[in-house]
């Protein structure tokens, strides 16, 4: 680990000022940043520990019926917040399908959205990686890449975004509240992460020093609570990153889909919102055919970036399955294995 300075600002404005200095990085719980520093992948010269800034750890219901989640709200506290989980069950399910209890007890809302890719070549400093070292090349292209992206990738980078939390947030049109030296601004979550293009090292729209202060979900998002599921295919049961995941939410009235929300995880460098699929679902009757069509539309642009063509077919199946689950109705209690294909099998109430 390299040597550096450590500061602990006590307000957002102090943090923003400190974070703007070159070489600075915000430290929330550190479950991702500390790991990257140990491996020499992140080398900040100054850590700005925002973990104790007061006022950033609240879950507030807004006058219009939406919710505002402070950037320091822990993943576990959010998932187990009864009111929140009742209104945004798909978000709670996604959170609980991710990481382990230990990590969810520490990890924060802001940190989760900003966790870096798990591409193994990004982690291995002996490999070439454009994200870590712009211009160095990308060893994943000719390497072990069955877990890599099938949507939105470029020759410069084929990595995926590992966050589960971000997937339902993207589906539900969450808004990220950002504070910088110039004041506060808001960015829809779907515009927050960037696709790699030629600059995979630039991962989000945050400018240096800009701090996430909260994430907001609107009352409109809560209207999907009755038919909303997160489904995550992974290679083992307790904590593993998604191979492919989907957040699917429907508003159903009189046997017809009024509106649909759909996003995918594990397929691109950002949570992938499938708007064409949503449009096709609107007005359709829920069922095998409409779900298959939606799945096909969502993956229409997909292409393998290596040894991962199977992910395209898998993503279609995950979408169809997630929509089927959503149409069946959100279970009253979260299943014992959140997001698991097996948990969502038979009865959802056991």
């Amino acid at each position, binding site marked *: *680990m390299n040597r550096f300075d450590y500061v602990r600002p006590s307000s957002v404005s102090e943090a923003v000022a400190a974070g703007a200095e070159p070489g600075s990085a915000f*430290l929330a719980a550190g479950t991702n940043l500390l790991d990257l520093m140990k491996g020499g992948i992140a080398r900040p010269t100054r850590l700005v520990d925002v973990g104790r800034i007061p006022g950033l750890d609240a879950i507030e219901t807004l006058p219009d019926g939406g919710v505002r989640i402070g950037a320091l709200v822990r993943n576990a506290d959010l998932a187990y917040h009864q009111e929140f989980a009742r209104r945004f069950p798909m978000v709670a399910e996604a959170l609980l399908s991710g990481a382990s*209890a*230990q990590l969810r007890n520490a990890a924060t809302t802001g940190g989760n959205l900003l966790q870096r890719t*798990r591409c193994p070549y990004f982690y291995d400093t002996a490999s070439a990686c454009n994200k870590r070292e712009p211009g160095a090349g990308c060893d994943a292209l000719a390497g072990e890449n069955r877990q890599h992206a099938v949507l939105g990738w470029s020759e410069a980078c084929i990595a995926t975004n590992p966050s589960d939390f971000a997937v339902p947030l993207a589906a539900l049109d969450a808004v990220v509240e950002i504070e910088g030296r110039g004041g506060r601004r808001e960015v829809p979550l779907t515009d927050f992460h960037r696709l790699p293009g030629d600059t995979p090292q630039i991962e989000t729209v945050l400018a240096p020093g800009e701090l996430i202060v909260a994430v907001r979900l609107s009352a409109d998002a809560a209207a999907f609570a009755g038919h909303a599921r997160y489904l995550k*295919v992974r*290679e083992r*049961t307790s904590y593993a990153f998604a191979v492919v995941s989907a957040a699917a939410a429907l508003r159903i009235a009189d046997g017809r889909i009024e509106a649909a929300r759909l996003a995918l995880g594990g397929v691109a460098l950002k949570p992938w919102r499938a708007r064409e699929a949503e449009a096709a679902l609107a007005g359709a009757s829920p069922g095998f055919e409409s779900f298959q069509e939606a799945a096909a539309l969502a993956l229409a642009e997909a292409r393998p970036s290596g040894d991962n063509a199977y992910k395209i077919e898998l993503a279609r199946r995950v979408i169809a399955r997630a929509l089927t689950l959503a149409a069946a109705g959100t279970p009253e209690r979260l299943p014992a294995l959140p997001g698991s294909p*097996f948990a969502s099998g038979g009865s959802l109430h056991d």
Partner: protein
Amino acid sequence: MTRTLTLIVNGEPRTLQAAPFASLADTLREGLHLTGTKVGCDAGDCGACTVLLDGEQVCACLVPTAQAEGRAITTIEGAGPAGLVDRLRESFLAHGAAQCGICTPGMIMAAADVLARDPRAGRAEIEDGLGGVLCRCTGYVKIVEAVLDVARGANAFAAKADAGAAVGARLARVDGRPKVEGTDHFGADHQPEGALWLRLIRSPHASARFALGDLAPVLARHPGLARILTARDIPGENAFGIFPTIKDQPVLADGLVRMRGDPVAALVGTRAAVEGFPDADLPITWEVLPALHGAAAALAEGAPALHRAVPDNVLTRGRLERGDVAEGHAAGAATASVAFETAFVEHAYIEPEAGYARRVGDRIEVTACTQAPVMDQEEVARVLGVPMHAVRIVPTACGGGFGGKLDVSIQPILAVAAWVTGQPVRIVYSRIESMASTTKRHPASIRARMSADGDGRFTAFEMEGDFNTGAYASWGPTVANRVPVHAPGPYRVPHVRNRTRAVYTNDTPAGAFRGFGVPQATLAAETLIDDLAEGLGLDRWTIRRRNALDHGDTTASGQVLHASAGLPQCLDALRDDFLRAQADAEAFNRTSGRVKRGAGIACMWYGCGNTSMSNPSTMRIALRPDGTLTFFNGAVDIGQGSTTVLLQIAADALGLAPDAFESVVGDTDLTPDAGKTSASRQTFVSGNAARLAGEDLRRAILSLANAGPDARLRLEGACLHVENGPASRVIDLTTLSPDETGAVLSGEGRYDPPTTALDANGQGVPYATYGFAAQAAEVEVDTVLGTVRVTRIVAAHDVGRAVNPTLVEGQIHGGIAQGLGLALMEEFIPGRTENLHDYLIPTVGDMPEIVVHLIEDPEPEGPFGAKGVGEPALVATAPAILSAIRHATGARLTRVPVLPHRLHAALHAREAAE
């Protein structure tokens, strides 16, 4: 940069200097010497470092120390809320929930979190709460049971055994208490004052020549460095290896690297200096050479030789031939063939290699985790160029091994560093380094063919297997020799021809891993048996039962099994279960949609001890004038429980209760050579030595007392009561004159299993005895998504005699977990899965319900009838799971692990074929 921080640890404020961003785990361990909090990965993947922060479980390895300031930190050393931690400790002990114990502190803290929030938590809540802590030993079964018991309010009591009643008792591990209290010392927990640290710089290339530049200026630039060691600094021979004739692995590479992760230089200095040294500061020029990955590349025409002595890259050829396979196939009514592929598998013990060395005058002492202290002693002596008696190996508690600590790793270089600097030197491998540089299970490519007659009786089996042994020999020859004997499985097969090759490549070395190649071969053979059953219209249970080796049968190597061949009983024990599961699955599948169920079955056998080689063990028991009774046991306990089991055997042979003894375990200065903890040999081989030692001492006592063979012994202080009816007498030990070791009475036992050499056709008696097992698996397959869940495993194991049933069950549970990993998720790819989130091992949520049947077909040659179970536990699981997936879906899988993408492809291919 450090600053003064105050932490509240277990209720007490502690002020110390620490870097604010240093991990809490490191600060607790190195700053406060609270080493109960373990570090298995330093990356959030294993949960060994779990502590409570304001009552909630977190990974201390990812908590920046400054963030813990002012918050309540509870570690395993703390008493915990309302005696909860204490109750968990007792329950873990009584249930045998701690094997090696490296995960135990983390498990107990995670359980304390669950039960503090929900004192009546049920199985689902407990599994959820423990989901973030990995255990490689127990299969989680006894851990969950232990926690459930506390939730139910049950009080745990560990059984005690009276004199003569130890064998067969469910005694708690005699080394268990420190494990549940967090006071056991593993390799990284030894923190000698003033120690220097050692770190290896490793090759990023799989094949390259290199030259090092001038190191003096580098040393000058890094004042904290004491030395940069290179190949030239090795005082003795710069080579090690398992076999006396194959010392092919350098301690530090000398101008040539043969694998990614080969060490090229060793930094010795302060911790800050060795950890802060950027590898790019080492002046090194590389000439990268083409690398041979996979056995096929190394066997290709014109492939360069990795080692000059082996021009064709074939390290060893193994062979067995019996009868005439062509004739056997011709006699068959059905023949099946298969090409099977397996991957590198990582041991993934939760404790990465760690320890320290110090020079004591002209001697060197290496204190480190190991499975083979005497081998370490030999290797260190050769590398230092000193006689064996100048080397002392002190094994630490070993946080899992499974074969991975059967090669030296840190020992030689630690010894060199301590030797040349004269100071104590520590090393702790990082998880990545451990995974990148130490041995793996051999990837195998097996082609096999098997025939059976119309009644399903096997007529012929043949196989050819190539095993990728990586850059260095390690245990490659053992694998190549063990597989031909075992490959046909535990069945009567009159005509057999097996050939194996261990092949050098530029991959990570493959060595010993629970089963030495037998699990790979069993996957191929059991697939063929399912094929034959299908082809002949026979039930999968029946075909196995009809061919199962029984008393009096002859094996493929021509050995007659005179006794202890309990496979028929194993199969009978799970028959009803299997047939019911099979019928249930078929009924379910008739109406089910995407989820299909299946039942599968597989058998295994495994020879205990080394293949046709002498592998003796010696044990000693001594009684001192003050009545101290000491068991000198050189067998290292890697969690499997030999410290307890061997004591149970010794105690009953002597006739005193186990708690009358103290044990000295595996210190080469104090204990005689018990051989390696490998090949499922300690219960059988060292168990016999322990029995003989106990009998020897008993004989000495009885003859001194002039008592008959049925006399009962009682030890009270310095008085040894020999009770023999009217002829009873008391020996006052203080009146006897001690020998040079201070003992007044002692017993020694040596045992070497009777085997014979194998002839050119692999015929002979390679092992004195075999363990047998049959396992049935039930699975649920999501055929749309390609995911598999194992729901139940019934395991019937013939162990001869269960010396400690709790420990035997623990071995079986743990073996099943590893077998499940082999079948479904574990695939090590050099340079790509060198951590525990890219390399997945089963978590508590992956474990099925397990039912164990212990079959005891006594082995007359074994101590109290016992034989080994350590490796047998794993072998049948993966083939049983594959058999079940095939039953569920019709997909015949010939490559493990069956990851979702592979199952997806197999199901696709099946759909296309239909």
